[in-house]
Structures are given as structure tokens and as C-alpha cells.
């Protein structure tokens, strides 16, 4: 039960940061998404995002910074394993399921459905 409450709070707070950026700055949703992925990757790089994942579980991995985190975790794993060329292989290996799902489901739904109105 605690895991669900923590996921709710951590995930909700990350979204609140996004809302503040959208309401108080001229940033559009697209800017916020890009900024969040980059921030997630950078925070992960300096070791600050993993503690948030340990705390919030899906509350930290489901929001977009979690995607940036997954990219960096994979990259670092592959650099440890394969050295220099791991820089190229790690990010997409670690995020393959999400990227593949986004493209395939995104394509399927766009073909199946039509916009309302």
C-alpha cells in the first residue's frame, strides 16, 4: 500500500513541476516533455534520479524524466560491459520496450481511430 501512496505522491509532484512550468513560463507542453527527458537523463548521470525511483517506484519511472533515466542507466551499464561502443548501444537497448510500444501502438491506434468531430 505504501508503494502506491509513494507512487501517487512522487508522480503527482513531478506533474506539478510540469504544470508550474507551463503556467508560469512561456514553455509549451512539447518544451516541457523535452526538458523533462533531458533533466531525467542529467539527474540520472549525477546519481540523483535513482534515489527518486527507489522512493517512488512507478511514480518516478512513468513520468518522462523516468524515460531519460532509463536511457542513461542503459548507457552506463553498456559502457561498463563493452567500453566505448556501449555509449551507442545502451540507451536504446534499455528503452527498447517503451520505444517499440510507442511506435507500434501509436501507429496502430492512429490507423484504427479517427479524430472526434
Amino acid at each position, binding site marked *: 500500500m505504501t*508503494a502506491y501512496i509513494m*507512487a*501517487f*505522491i512522487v*508522480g*503527482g*509532484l513531478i*506533474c*506539478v513541476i*510540469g*504544470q508550474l*512550468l507551463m*503556467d508560469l513560463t512561456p514553455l509549451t*507542453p*512539447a518544451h516541457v*516533455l*523535452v526538458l*523533462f*527527458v533531458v533533466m531525467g*537523463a*542529467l539527474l*540520472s*548521470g549525477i546519481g540523483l534520479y535513482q534515489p527518486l525511483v527507489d522512493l*517512488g*517506484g*512507478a*511514480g518516478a*519511472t*512513468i*513520468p*518522462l524524466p*523516468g*524515460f*531519460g533515466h*532509463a*536511457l*542513461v542507466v*542503459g*548507457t*552506463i551499464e*553498456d*559502457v561498463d560491459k563493452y567500453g566505448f561502443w*556501449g*555509449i551507442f548501444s*545502451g*540507451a536504446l537497448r534499455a528503452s527498447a*520496450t*517503451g520505444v*517499440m*510500444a*510507442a511506435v507500434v*501502438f*501509436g*501507429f496502430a*491506434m*492512429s*490507423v*484504427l*481511430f*479517427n479524430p472526434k468531430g
Partner: protein
Amino acid sequence: MSENIRQQMKEEAFQQKFNQVKPKPPLLKNIIWAFVVGGFICTIGQFVLDYFLSLGMGKKEAAGSATAVMVFLGSFFTGLGIYDELGKRAGAGSIVPITGFANSIVAPAMEFKREGYIFGVGAKMFVIAGPVLVYGMVTAFIVGLVYWLRQ
């Protein structure tokens, strides 16, 4: 004199009434919506994640599968037209989770379907997802390079 007082009382009453009915600054409302909807979506994600973990999957595989399920839900509800209705109120609460990423793929792809499957669906899918992938991957590359150089 009494006329003036009456006028003043009228104005005060008006001001009081006005304060009651005027819309509250939307910022607080937006924040609450973003928190509740964003938190709720992540709670569903946690539920899906726990389900995959209970099947005996490793942590990383379970997280990947949970992401895929959330992406499916995001694109499906976008197709049904429900996700964008939610988005009108939820703001960042529906944009920042990975379901919003899926929404950013399906919504423009559907919208531009009439321009064909190459320049419509195929290209417009990545109007927002493209920049997200580009900057995410470039950042991961830089972080990876710095990590490799410091080894």
C-alpha cells in the same frame, strides 16, 4: 451624506458578491488537477509494475513491460478521444506521464491521416516524440561519454 454611505455600502456589497463569484486564480486548480491525475496515472503504473513483478519478472523487464502497457493505454484512450478530454483539465498531469508521450504520438498522427500514411501518419507521429527522442538520446550520449572518459 446618507446617500454617500448608502452608495458605499452598495459598493461593499457588490465587492463582496464579486469576490464570491469571480473565478479563483486557475493556477492552484491546475496544480491540484495535475497532481491528482498525474499521481493517479503513476499509481496505475505501479499496479501494472507489481503485477509483472508478481509473475517473477526481473525489475528491469517488469519496468519495461509496465511502460509498454501504459503506452498502450495512453494511445488507446487517445484513439477513443477520452485522453484529450482529460487533458483539458489535467494539463501536465496527463502530459508528463508516459501515457502523455503516447498521446503526443497518436493525436497528431490521427489528425493528419488525410495527408496519407507517409507524410501524414508516419511523419506526424514524431512531431513531439521526435524532439523528445533526439534530445533524450543526445543527452544520454553525452552522459555516457563523460562517464567513459572518467573511467
